[in-house]
């Protein structure tokens, strides 16, 4: 592989891992707080739809982003109400959210835009375009460093930078702030938090809202950054992959980033390996397409060992009963 192909693969890796990373970090907040979230997919889908629909109607990408974040937050709140206040089963709440998102986005899309649930193709100004970092052009011709900086690091849309910035921020929040300490504690032993005079419910709501926020970014990335409009079910199971990445990374921010990059890389590689020949025989495209999943299974079985999640995860907190 020459430099161009490598760079292009890595460039795609970054793009493909961005929504995974955002969703994975999103899941990290609520799961660290003891709320299992299999509804990442649904929140992203809601956000993707709201962002594209709003961007298309208002003509403003920022309005689109705001709508995406807003809807995702509201969805998170709904899920939170079910799972935290009403002490409902967290898995059911997530499943319901996923299904609601699939149905509602398409249904409303058809009603509003009459394009089979798709939103209109977004035009210039209605979607995030590539951001050129300072000196990208000037450095482009410097050997090695130049292309890496100007092709790989520069030239992504703003949500990509937000996603990767969210990694150190999340690390700092979780491990260096009062909020993070309480958040982590609430997922491990909510009783200890309660008896320390902190409201478990409030902590969990805050966590779930952050999850909503990050899912909002992830959803917006699909429809108004990487894509140019909403398509039915366009998140295509990424929420579940993000969940897998979260477990893979053992609920830690920096490993989460590397896991998402790995998944993104495997996907980018898959795209580029299609049609490859091994020993003169063309490998079936399905084998290549399954490669990321097969490799994940192998890596998991080979190297990762047991992943133990936050201890209090999955159960609603109640003092009595």
């Amino acid at each position: 592989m020459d430099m161009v192909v490598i760079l292009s693969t890595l460039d795609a890796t970054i793009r493909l891992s961005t929504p995974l990373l955002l969703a994975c970090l999103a899941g990290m907040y609520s799961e660290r707080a003891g709320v299992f979230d299999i509804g990442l997919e649904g929140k992203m889908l809601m956000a993707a739809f709201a962002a594209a629909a709003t961007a298309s109607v208002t003509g403003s990408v920022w309005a689109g982003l705001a709508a995406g974040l807003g809807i995702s937050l509201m969805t998170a709140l709904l899920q939170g109400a079910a799972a935290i206040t009403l002490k409902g089963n967290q898995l059911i709440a997530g499943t319901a959210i996923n299904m609601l998102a699939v149905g509602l986005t398409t249904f409303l899309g058809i009603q509003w835009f009459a394009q089979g649930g798709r939103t209109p193709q977004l035009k210039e100004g209605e979607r995030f375009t590539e951001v050129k970092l300072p000196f990208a052009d000037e450095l482009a011709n410097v050997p090695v460093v130049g292309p890496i900086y100007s092709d790989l690091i520069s030239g992504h849309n703003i949500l990509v930078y937000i996603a990767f910035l969210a990694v150190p921020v999340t690390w700092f929040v979780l491990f260096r702030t009062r909020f993070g300490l309480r958040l982590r504690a609430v997922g491990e032993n909510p009783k200890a938090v309660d008896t320390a005079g902190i409201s478990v419910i409030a902590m969990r709501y805050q966590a779930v809202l952050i999850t909503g926020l990050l899912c909002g970014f992830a959803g917006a990335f699909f429809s108004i950054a990487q894509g140019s409009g909403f398509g039915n079910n366009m998140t295509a199971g990424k929420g579940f992959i993000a969940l897998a990445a979260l477990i893979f990374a053992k609920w830690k921010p920096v490993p989460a980033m590397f896991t998402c990059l790995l998944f993104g890389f495997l996907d980018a590689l898959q795209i580029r390996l299609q049609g490859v020949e091994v020993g003169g025989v063309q490998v079936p495209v399905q084998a290549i397409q399954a490669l990321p999943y097969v490799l994940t299974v192998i890596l998991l079985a080979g190297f990762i060992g047991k992943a133990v999640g936050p201890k209090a995860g999955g159960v609603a907190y109640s003092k009595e009963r």
Partner: protein
Amino acid sequence: MSALKPLPRWADIILLPLINLTLAFIVAGLVVFAIGQNPLAALDAIITGAFGSGYNIGYTLYYSTNFIFTGLAVAVAAHAGLFNIGGNGQAYIAGLGVILVALAMQSLPWWLTFPVAILAGAAVGGFWGFVPGYLQAKRGSHVVITTIMFNFIASAIMIYVVVNLLKPPGILAPESASIAVEGRMPKLGTFIPWFKNTDVNFTLILALICLVGAYFLIWHTRFGFAMRALGQNPTATRYAGMSNSRITMIVMTMSGALAGMVAVNQVFGVQYRLVLDYVADAGFVGIAVALMGRNHPLGILLAALLFGALYQGGNELQYVIPGLSKEMVVVIQALVILFTGAMEGLFRPALQRLFSGGPAAARSGG
């Protein structure tokens, strides 16, 4: 403020879910109303569509059959503390076993093929559950991740096998050859005119047997005891000397085998050939079915009927009220899951107050 008493059993099992179901339909009705359609007409269309005639009931039962299997698959695993998200993949890949047996035995009477097809579906689906089980038991891989991955791997394998190995030349559609007419299992409509022209078939009976079997397995066998023990407290099972890894592998195999029965219903019972994506996310619906049915076979039966009815009724909805597309049905299903599953606590305190208030008021009155 005095402590609230727990609800009487009947209120817990019947009244509360009914209230929640009503609420789900009210909210869905609001959505329907908001787009200018008549919610009552829609409700009528769904109910008639699901139960209006033998034809409708037949299809409702046909969809329910799938959901019983996937619901049981999730529930059996859940009792052992395992979350099997892989129902889709297990149900899908099991079709390979079913179609190979069915094609090989197509000149024989169907009742000879049926049990073999069941075994083949169970074996292949079971294998697809066993591997994640094995990886969790022996390698510590999380079964949730592995089963998600196995769903994707299954669809890749299926498309390759169907298109490249099973598809007879000369047809465009990616599907296997059809089972010879004389080897096909008749549908129930052949015997019960009521169900004429519907897809409900003998697999429904298999599903009912599986429900009863699961009930006995979970609560009346030694293995079921061990399995539930593992689900509740893996340290205690280690203490008790049950082999956690063995139980995990067996349970995941059983779970996969149950999901694999969807293939029997779809491939051997209805389509008579292997098509792509015949599972249609029944595996995911199974999660909701199991959770709403509280992992109890009776609950699963009821939840599967509910979802079968919603599926079929919703399907009919778009014929009756063209403005209400199939997505509306998904919305209704989601609301049902949300209100009867996740938000079931919404009215509990109010009901409890009602029930505890009742006798107290009577006492002070008398």
